[in-house]
């Protein structure tokens, strides 16, 4: 299947009082229709900003965004409203992302009201159908978000994202705030609706087990840059970047017999403000040499489809 959305050297800088914050720095990738690209990384690596820039909730400061082959980097308001029909987002926090003064019906129907062109009857039908799809009982239609638990609220967030029949959905940590048994229900739901409607996901998470389960391709970010990108199995089988390796080794595996060869990273992520030349991971890297602090490694494809940004990737 073909490419649905791609970005080329996408950049998002914020001007803050102490300098320029590099939230997303020259990120290039594409996602095929019906597939899921998992984005992993720790807090502050720019993964959420990336998702927001892609669907124009934030404007990029450089680079290009292509949707269905068309350049949509800069769009006029009219065109944006059309794009919004096709691109949606599911937010992390099911508590703060829903308006507490709106009923479930109003929340789910709002995108249709904004887009216009729906009759009362149509809106009714669509709202009830979507509620069935995401597993919300119809009797809840006039409830308010505070009356419901986290899992049900996240279902509302998903229903709202689905209501305009989008093609592309940014899932920004959609299950991180949920208990594990509820998390499993929501992951299953996301997989079901993807299969039914051939949806394309950008799935942002810090949970490596979830990303492994749900993604076709995985992209690892560190301080605004992509450090490694590969097919799901390939990445977990042969992580090449020292950061990816330590990330994978840090996962707490639910098995008492699991032998842990943990790579404990030194120190913490440095500030994303006014970054100079050199590998951004170098201060924490156990293989870092002088060269790493001087020149920035580029993202290079090593073997087919597996790209890594490191001067000394594993196996080299």
């Amino acid at each position, binding site marked *: 299947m073909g490419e649905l959305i791609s970005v080329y050297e996408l950049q998002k800088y914020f001007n803050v009082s102490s300098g320029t914050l590099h939230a997303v720095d020259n990120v290039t990738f594409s996602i095929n229709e019906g597939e899921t690209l998992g984005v992993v990384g*720790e807090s502050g690596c720019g993964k959420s900003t990336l998702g927001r820039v892609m669907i124009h909730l934030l404007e990029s400061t450089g680079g290009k965004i292509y949707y269905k082959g068309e350049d949509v980097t800069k769009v006029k308001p009219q065109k944006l409203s059309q794009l919004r029909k096709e691109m949606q987002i599911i937010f992390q926090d099911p508590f703060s992302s829903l308006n507490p003064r709106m009923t479930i019906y109003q929340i789910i129907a709002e995108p249709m009201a904004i887009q216009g062109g729906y009759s009362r009857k149509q809106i009714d039908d669509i709202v009830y159908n979507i509620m069935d799809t995401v597993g919300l009982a119809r009797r809840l239609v006039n409830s308010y978000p505070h009356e419901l638990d*986290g899992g049900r609220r996240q279902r509302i967030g998903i229903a709202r994202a689905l209501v305009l029949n989008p093609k592309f959905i940014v899932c920004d940590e959609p299950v991180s705030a949920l208990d594990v048994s509820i998390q499993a229900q929501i992951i299953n739901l996301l997989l*079901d609706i993807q299969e039914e409607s051939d949806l394309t996901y950008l799935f942002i998470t810090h949970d490596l*087990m979830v990303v492994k*389960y749900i993604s076709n391709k995985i992209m690892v970010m560190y301080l605004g840059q992509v450090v490694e990108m590969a097919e799901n199995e390939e990445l977990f089988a042969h992580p090449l970047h020292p950061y990816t390796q330590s990330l994978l080794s840090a996962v707490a595996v*639910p098995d*008492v017999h699991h032998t842990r060869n943990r790579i404990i990273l030194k120190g913490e992520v440095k500030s994303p403000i006014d970054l100079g030349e050199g590998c951004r991971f170098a201060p924490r890297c156990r293989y870092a040499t002088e060269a790493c602090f001087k020149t920035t490694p580029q993202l290079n494809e090593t073997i087919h489809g597996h790209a890594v940004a490191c001067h000394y990737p594993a196996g080299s």
Partner: protein
Amino acid sequence: MDNTILSIKDLTIHYFTSDFGVCKAVNHVSLDLKAGETLGIVGETGAGKTTVALGILGLLQSPPGRVISGSIEYQRKDLLKMSEREMQKIRGGQISMVFQDPMTALNPIDRVGEQIAEVIHLHQHCSRIEAIDKAMEMLELVGITRDRYLEYPHQFSGGMKQRVVIAMALACSPHILLADEPTTALDVTIQAQVLDMMNQMKKTMGTSVILITHDLGVVAEMCDKVAVMYAGEIVESGTAEDIFDRTAHPYTMGLFTSLPGYVKDAKRLKPIRGLMPDPANLPELCKFGPRCDKTCERCSGELPELVEITPGHFARCFSCSDEKGGK
């Protein structure tokens, strides 16, 4: 030889609220902690894990919280019968706690080092100079340099704040450390650092730990014994091997099958259906019954007891105890 250091018997804690009636947060919980051991309390939001910890330290907000019954025996004394004065000596000294959220556990307008020194000064009856010196040592022990003693919490990252909280909790070499989701708010690589550090400290100081978490991965890594809580009750307890390799209770099983990657090559996850019951309106029979796939006739007639299915491995389910009885 019995080296039990803390023994909780039949602990029941309810919250009396005007809006929702009586919330039965903890019901007849019994736990034993042995010296040098790490006991994991596992469960989802609202299972009553944190309430147990607050109960041990006498930190329950009352009202609405009230201990209905039970005893918590520590050094042959019942903590629940102690006066506030006696409790203050124990709290932070012999038994200390690490809270989930390092952002709110520290005083934002007090220097980090001073916050650690205060604990030492209070409990170890030493001079201020000695306390400051010990506090600096503690900072170094958790991997923070001495020269940051005078900084404020906002100058520290999340992982470092949590390390300060841990340094504070361990400053008086406590017998028991209660850690309530100590790594939940942290990134995985920082979580790895903190867990690694906690394990080392445990070894050097011989502290017994009660680790409260919802993360079965963290439990597998840290705990010798595990108690699984559901709706205020212990539904299964035993050694870590009992829980992970010989899982007995359907709820524990459900927690495992909900994890991505637990069942190999499964196309869909196997979640537990439905929701956790409202603690103000618990089912009369088995609390897990309405969500259980393994219900039998007995479930609709009587209440399951916590039964020892193999030595040291307990489960509150007829399907486990009946299997054993049938053998």
